[in-house]
């Protein structure tokens, strides 16, 4: 059997009312008005960092060593060259002898990656493949996309046993439909006329893929528990469901007004939301949109409830949020307007690639060491045990801190250190189970912390070094969510 073994999601802590964007930029293009709010990645997040956090959610309680593939889907890849999937796999502390690939260039990339994972497992060339998808689009001020897009990531673990959903079949459509595009030198995407996209693309491709899937799998409308597909136009989203013969309660809530259109992550996030609420024997159809459409059918198994409480998923993270009320912060976070960083802010450390390679498990996977003699966990990894009563030499085994909760031992809000979201907040953390060190904090604001608070680790972009074309990643701590 092939299917879904686990799921995970990552929705950034910040949410912004679309009216914040509209009041700042609506004067330019009054027709851009949209209701609801959207998820906004913090200044230290990007598609890779969010994918890691979704992957962490998906792998909670699962042995990392069973994973033999990591597929990453996004249209907003931080690196054009340097495999983004390999950064994610390293950060998730996966084995090295695995398949990794980036799926890109279309908002249907995530379903393509999901299908590729299912096909590989079905064919027997892999047992478990983790599929991560992430969307963190950078949008032009005043554009319709600026309001519509939101940031999020999702992860699905495809496997061959202990499945919570069984994979039944898929139908793929591929068209060179230039509704939105970016050339290799572009930062922002371009759109053709909206009405043409809606009538000739969105309203046609999705029904075509789903209808073909239904025929192949002999699936009748009333047998569908949930149909999950991206919402580009609220009215047409509902109309597509109706035209396929489905009732409103068979359509997965589209999250457009809570998360936003999270590009390649969108269909996967909706699939996670559907799986999260599924019951045994439920048929779940997920379809993507972009350069055509892929539609996949899954059926929930008797084990469907087993991940509940393990993964945070969509619902818990939707509920855990902080308000971003400043449009100026939003555009600054994505480096859309240049801001004065001062000379201190320009002092970017240099990520030395050979050093990073040598210490990759420490930096990217937050792996320290644990003394075999006295049991003391320590970060960073030590050769000589830090326990003053032990000090054993070379008696260490690897010890991963990224999945350990921690307690805020002491902290400060620093207004001298440069931060794009000041004040810079950092702390000394005591990890549950032992080990301590200082870490940057994120997803919290001035006045919101207390000594003793429970914290969790989150993978973040530490700095962007434009002069050396480097995004550097590390782990920060955030107040425990969900």
């Amino acid at each position, binding site marked *: 059997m092939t299917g879904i073994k686990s799921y995970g999601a990552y929705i950034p802590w910040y949410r912004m009312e679309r009216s914040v964007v509209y009041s700042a930029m609506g004067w330019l293009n009054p027709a851009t008005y949209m209701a609801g709010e959207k998820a906004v990645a913090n200044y230290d997040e990007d598609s890779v960092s969010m994918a890691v956090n979704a992957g962490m959610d998906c792998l909670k309680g699962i042995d990392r060593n069973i994973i033999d593939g990591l597929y990453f889907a996004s249209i907003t890849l931080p690196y054009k060259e340097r495999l983004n999937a390999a950064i994610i796999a390293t950060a998730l502390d996966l084995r090295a002898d695995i398949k990794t690939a980036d799926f890109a260039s279309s908002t249907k990339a995530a379903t393509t990656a999901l299908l590729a994972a299912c096909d590989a497992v079905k064919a027997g060339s892999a047992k478990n493949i983790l599929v991560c998808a992430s969307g963190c689009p950078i949008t032009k001020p005043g554009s319709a996309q600026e309001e519509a897009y939101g940031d999020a990531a999702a992860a699905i673990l495809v496997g061959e046993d202990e499945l919570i959903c069984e994979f039944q079949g898929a139908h793929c459509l591929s068209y060179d439909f230039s509704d939105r595009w970016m050339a290799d030198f572009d930062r922002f995407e371009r759109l053709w006329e909206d009405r043409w996209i809606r009538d000739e693309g969105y309203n046609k491709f999705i029904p075509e893929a789903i209808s073909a899937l239904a025929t192949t799998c002999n699936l009748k409308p009333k047998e569908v528990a949930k149909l999950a597909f991206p919402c580009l136009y609220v009215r047409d989203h509902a109309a597509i469901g109706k035209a396929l013969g489905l009732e409103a309660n068979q359509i997965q809530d589209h999250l457009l007004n809570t998360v936003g259109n999270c590009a390649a992550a969108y269909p996967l996030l909706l699939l996670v939301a559907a799986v999260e609420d599924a019951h045994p024997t439920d048929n779940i159809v997920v379809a993507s949109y972009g350069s055509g459409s892929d539609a996949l059918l899954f059926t929930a198994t008797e084990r469907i409830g087993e991940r509940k409480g393990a993964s945070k998923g969509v619902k818990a993270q939707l509920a855990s949020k902080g308000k971003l009320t400043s449009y100026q912060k939003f555009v600054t976070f994505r480096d859309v307007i240049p801001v004065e960083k001062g000379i201190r802010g320009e002092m970017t450390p240099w990520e030395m690639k050979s050093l990073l390679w040598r210490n990759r498990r420490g930096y990217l996977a937050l792996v320290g060491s644990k003394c075999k003699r006295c049991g003391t966990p320590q970060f960073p990894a030590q050769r000589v045990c830090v326990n003053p009563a032990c000090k054993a030499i070379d008696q260490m085994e690897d010890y991963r801190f990224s999945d350990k909760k921690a307690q805020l031992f002491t902290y400060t809000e620093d207004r001298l250190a440069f931060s794009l979201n000041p004040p810079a907040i950092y702390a000394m953390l005591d990890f549950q189970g032992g080990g301590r060190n200082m870490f940057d904090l994120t997803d919290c604001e001035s006045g919101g912390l207390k*000594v003793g608070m429970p914290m969790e680790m989150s993978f973040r972009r530490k700095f962007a070094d434009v002069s050396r074309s480097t995004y550097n990643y590390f782990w920060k701590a955030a107040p425990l969510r969900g």
Partner: protein
Amino acid sequence: MGTIKDKVAIIGMGCTKFGERWDAGPEDLMVEAFTEAIEDAGIEPKDIQAAWSSTQFTEVSIGVSGLPLAETLKLPFLPVTHVENMCASGSESLRGACYAVAAGVCDIALAMGVEKLKDIGYGGLPEFSLGASGKKEMLFNPNITAPGAFAMMATRYFERYNLSPEEGKLMLAKVSSKSHHNGTLNEKAHLRREAPVEAIMKAPIVAWPLGLYDCCGVSDGAAAALVVRADMAKSFRADPVYIKALQIAASSGEEIMYTDYDYTHVEPTCQAAAKAYEEAGVDNPREQISMAEVHDCFSITEAVTMEDLQFSARGKVKEDIDAGRFDLDGEQPIQPDGGLKCFGHPIGASGIRMMYEMYKQLQGKAGARQVKNPELGLTHNLGGFPPRCVISCFIVGL
């Protein structure tokens, strides 16, 4: 184990005016401190047999090696060594000179400390990501500054002793206000204005809970000491100052990585001080140490250091601060020259500057800020952050 007690004496010292010395480069500062020191000792440059120099942020001023000192002062092919131990670098330079003399390998040695910070173009210390914390560490260290690292000690101290932010900040404001007063009496000090407690409490926050006046000056400056074998000292002057103890202790990693450290004290200070007291034969530091220049990079550091040096009982420094114990006219004056807070903090020079004040005080030459009949003076120099630091502790006397 041997001891350095009464083996080495200081016979000459010099110290520049500290401050934003836009007019002076590190070479000018070294010449200024050196000239004063040799005149004070009454010796010629050619009498010097070995030299040490200390600077922490070499990358923004003089560069590395012993060459900047040797070439600036035209020292004639001497053994000249550059040392660095973060903010305790100045004490490290002095240790090098003292050890050489104590070892009997030379008779007269020079210790110089110099730092030129005000060529970086922004406030505060040079960004650590320039390399001060090491290329490996900066990839996982938080986006940390010195105020923040010490602010975390204040956060923890307030929590542990159940002080509200207002009570805690008031305690710290008194520490800074006292040093500001002492700074007004010191013409070489960087900051020479009184700072009333109310103004300190209202100042902008730099790193919560520390505000502007909780932080020391970031200054340019240099300080120099000439040390000789103790048995020769009286041939140079009638009032040489003798080294009674010299101890250095560096964190071993347990504070930052092992969970027993409480972040309301500085362990290497406790360790270095205990050894220094033993070396100097001090059993009751609260009574026997007449005065001290401690590393008050931040107000909280000075407060905690009073406890670590056993001047105050653990958790009780607030009572001593409130009683005025550490004021210039108190029972145990601390920072008579204004301290790092107001004299300023040119990193590599600070350890020697502290000694400069103890030296002048013991000789009765401290003018308006003279402490009455001091017998033993102590310097405490801290390099790094509370959970990861190097501490030096000198005790000197006549």
